[in-house]
C-alpha cells in the first residue's frame, strides 16, 4: 500500500498552532495524505480517515484550563464517536490535554512543577511497543523529542494509575539518556514520570512531547518519526 492512500485528519481549533507542523510532516516527510478538520465543520462521521491527530497549541488560548474549552467543541463529539469505534486517535501536547478533558483518556494535567513553560529536549522510554503508535519502535528504545508546554504535569489517582499500568496503557515515561527513569529526568513533575498514555482499547494515545518536531535529521532528532512510522505500519498491516 502506498502511504498516499493513508488518510489522516488533523483537527484545528481556534488557537491550535502545531496543526501546520503536523500537516507538513505527515505529508512531506511521510507521504501520508493529511488534511485539516475545522472544529466547527459538521463532520458527523470521521470514518474516511485512517487516523486522527489532535495537534498541539493553545486551543482557546488555554484559558480556564488547558484543553478544557476545545474538549467541549462540536467536532470532539465526532472524535469521541470515531474513537469509540476503534479509530486511531493521537493527541500531541495540547491534543493530549484535550483528550483528557474530553474524557477519552484518564487523568488530568496540572501546571508544571516549576510553574513555568518548559521548552527542551527530553528522553522517553517506550514501555509498550505493541500499540498502533509504537509498533515500529524497538523494544525498550529511548527516544529523544522536544517538549514545549506549561501544563504537562500528569496526575491521576493511585487506583487509576494501577489500572493504566495493568492494561499496559502507560506508553511513555520520561527518562535519562540511558533509559533510567529518574526524578532528574522528569521535566514537569508528572506522576511516575508519565509522558504518554493510551486508553484501555489502545486506539487512543496522548503524549506531551512533539514527535512532529523530531522527525527530520536537520532538527536534531528523527526519533519522533517512529510514532508516525508505527501508525503507518499498523494501518498497512491491518
Amino acid at each position, binding site marked *: 500500500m502506498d502511504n498516499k492512500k493513508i488518510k489522516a485528519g488533523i483537527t484545528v481549533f481556534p488557537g491550535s498552532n502545531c496543526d501546520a507542523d503536523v500537516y507538513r510532516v505527515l505529508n512531506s516527510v511521510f507521504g501520508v495524505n493529511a488534511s485539516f478538520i475545522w472544529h466547527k465543520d459538521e463532520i458527523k462521521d470521521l470514518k474516511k480517515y485512517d487516523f486522527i491527530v489532535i495537534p498541539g497549541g493553545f486551543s482557546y488560548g488555554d484559558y480556564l484550563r488547558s484543553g478544557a474549552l476545545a474538549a467541549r467543541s462540536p467536532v470532539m463529539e465526532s472524535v469521541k464517536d470515531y474513537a469509540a469505534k476503534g479509530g486511531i486517535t493521537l493527541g500531541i501536547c495540547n491534543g493530549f490535554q484535550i483528550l483528557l478533558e474530553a474524557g477519552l483518556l484518564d487523568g488530568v494535567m496540572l501546571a508544571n512543577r516549576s510553574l513555568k513553560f518548559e521548552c527542551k529536549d527530553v528522553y522517553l522510554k517506550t514501555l509498550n511497543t505493541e500499540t498502533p503508535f509504537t509498533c515500529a519502535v524497538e523494544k525498550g528504545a529511548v527516544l529523544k523529542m522536544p517538549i514545549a508546554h506549561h501544563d504537562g*504535569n500528569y496526575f491521576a489517582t493511585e487506583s487509576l494509575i494501577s489500572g493504566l499500568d495493568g492494561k499496559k496503557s502507560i506508553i511513555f515515561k520520561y527518562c535519562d539518556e540511558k533509559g533510567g527513569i529518574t526524578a532528574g529526568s522528569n521535566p514537569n513533575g508528572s506522576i511516575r514520570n508519565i509522558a504518554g498514555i493510551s486508553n484501555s482499547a489502545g486506539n487512543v494515545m496522548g503524549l506531551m512531547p512533539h514527535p512532529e518536531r523530531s522527525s527530520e535529521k536537520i532538527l536534531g532528532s528523527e526519533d519522533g518519526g517512529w510514532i508516525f512510522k508505527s501508525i503507518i505500519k499498523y494501518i498497512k498491516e491491518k
Partner: protein
Amino acid sequence: MAKKAFIKVVLKEEVLDPQGKAVLSVLKSSGYGNVKDVRVGKYIELDFNEDKSGKRRPLEEEAEEISEKVLSNPLIEEFSIEIK
C-alpha cells in the same frame, strides 16, 4: 430578579496545588510567616440575560450545569455557586 451567578472553583483537598505552594513560599520569604497554607482557585462571574419570557429554567440549574460541564474538572476540582 437574580441575573448573576458567582462560582468558586477550588482544587479538591487531596490534589496538590503547585500555584498555592509557590504563593506560600513567596509569602514566607516576604515576612508573612503566619500563613500556614495557600490554595489558589478560580472565581467566575456569569452574567445572564434577563428572562423576559419567564419560562426559563431556574438560574441555579443552568449555572450548576455550566459549572459542572465547562468551568470545572470534576476529577480534581469542586465548585460552589452563589446566585445574586
